[in-house]
């Protein structure tokens, strides 16, 4: 039996009186892509930020199996360990690439920064790796020295993905990675994400409001409403045979093409 990578039990996050997310439990396995769908305000992003340890959880347990194969209690992790984990084993792709990129330095430096943060000290090799990753995310390597602002929105998003994957993480969090991109760019990005996650045996937790994205990328799906998970299961199962009234509404709201 395969061991899970991330084990979430009864995770709750409150903002004062208000509920961010309530009593969320699931396991994430190596190489698995899990999508969290729901309308805006349903607590998707809160859940993601709590899982990525950007917000402190109020209750529940959160455990992660590190590369050394020991279980880490993430909610009790010291800050140095947490940061080390973030830069060596995890990635976080922001909804807006401007939040995830360093605007003042070139594309190459943006991809190279995580490498330098884990100790790379050879300029030539950092640059070669950056160029390889630009190729993998289908960016023109001749533009390695240009600033992120010189790239289009979709290219910036791919740049951000390269920056997150360059250190070979095991788990990547993504917050609406395709939002704000036009459909053709979105399709290419989804294609790329699917290729990369399967090539790298990457586990990913993707938050999206777009059912189409979820159907294309996810192995499993969690549907959230008012901070709670109302339905979870295999993607096809949930989308083709929704049980919960809210999921039924969500699936029926997708515009037919």
């Amino acid at each position, binding site marked *: 039996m395969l061991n899970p990578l991330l084990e979430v039990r009864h995770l709750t996050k409150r903002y004062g009186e208000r509920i961010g997310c309530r009593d969320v439990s699931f396991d994430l396995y190596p190489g698995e892509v899990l999508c969290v769908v729901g309308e805006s305000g349903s607590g998707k992003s809160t859940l993601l930020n709590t899982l990525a340890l950007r917000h402190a959880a109020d209750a529940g347990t959160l455990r992660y199996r590190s590369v050394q194969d020991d279980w880490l209690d993430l909610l009790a992790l010291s800050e140095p360990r947490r940061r080390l984990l973030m830069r060596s084993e995890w990635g976080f792709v922001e909804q807006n690439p401007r939040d995830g990129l360093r605007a003042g330095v070139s594309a190459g430096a943006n991809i190279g920064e995580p490498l330098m943060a884990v100790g790379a000290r050879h*300029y030539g090799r950092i640059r070669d790796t950056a160029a390889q990753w630009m190729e993998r995310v289908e960016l023109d390597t001749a533009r390695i020295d240009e600033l992120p602002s010189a790239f289009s929105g979709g290219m910036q998003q791919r740049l951000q993905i390269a920056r997150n994957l360059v250190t070979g993480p095991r788990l990547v969090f993504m917050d609406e990675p395709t939002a704000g991109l036009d459909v053709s760019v979105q399709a290419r990005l989804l294609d790329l994400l699917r290729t990369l996650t399967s090539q790298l045996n990457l586990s990913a937790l993707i938050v999206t409001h777009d059912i189409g994205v979820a159907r294309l990328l996810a192995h499993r799906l969690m549907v959230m409403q008012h901070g709670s998970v109302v339905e979870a299961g295999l993607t096809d199962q949930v989308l083709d045979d929704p049980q919960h009234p809210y999921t039924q509404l969500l699936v029926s709201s997708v515009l037919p093409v």
Partner: protein
Amino acid sequence: MTIPASLRSEAEIDGTVDGAAHAATDVDIDIGYNFAYLDEQTKRMIRRSLLKAVAIPGYQVPFGSREMPLPYGWGTGGIQVTAAIIGRDDTLKVIDQGSDETTNAVNIRRFFARTAGVKTTQRTAEASIIQTRHRIPEQPLTAQQIMVYQVPMPEPLYKLEPRVSECRKLHALADYGLISVKLYEDIVQHGSIATTYDYPVIVNHRYLASPSPIPKFDNPKLNMNPALQLFGAGRERRLYAIPPYTSVRSLDFDDHPFEVERWQHACALCGSRASFLDEVIVDDAGSRMYVCSDSDFCREQRSHADAGGPVPAEPASVIASV
């Protein structure tokens, strides 16, 4: 060849002493101020911070910086450190851009002559405390000397990480990947690491520190220096230190190693090829000459030559502009 007046020392112009230690009686001592201007409680507070700074080499210690009778950016941090450590038997030298005769250097030297009545000097060898901006003297320092640096911005990460709280965390965790990003960008834009002053260093294999705006030419002198080196940033309210014989490593990449500046010229006055040279425009036609930035070192070299010592290898020259 005549030396432009601007390059001669005030002592030479006076025709009196050639930079030797002035007795304190040359300047009127101001009564009504405490010894060395600051009150004893303030000095004690600064000394406590200095002790902590020496105990943790390269770590920026916060301190309660006082208003000083000169503007921020003119050396308020350095002057407070000097005031806190100076004693009646000390001999003070103050340099700015290597020179003893610039406004800043003359004023700070006079300030301590008047408020502390200490001896001042222009000779590196005679000084027990050397307050400096921008340079480390060419003459090697000894274990009897203390360097005091005036620091405008003590935080080497501030251009990359604007949050002070985050910078402190990065220091605490020794998370210094960011500073490499700056060096990487230098190579991208200029083909080599183009930072020439305030070149970031790692002190004692642990803390990232700014060496103050000294040229990177002087960075090797920070390493394993027998003198105690104290850094004061008045506006930013931080002190830090490099204790004697502490390792100081200039950051670089494996394939772009740290290098110091070199010149094709010798000093036009003393002929030295080993010192840091300033390029000086000498007339309206744009003629240039290269002279030592360390005025005391240049004078020593010349008096050596006058006394029949080893003659400089290259004749002095003024380089005409093209």
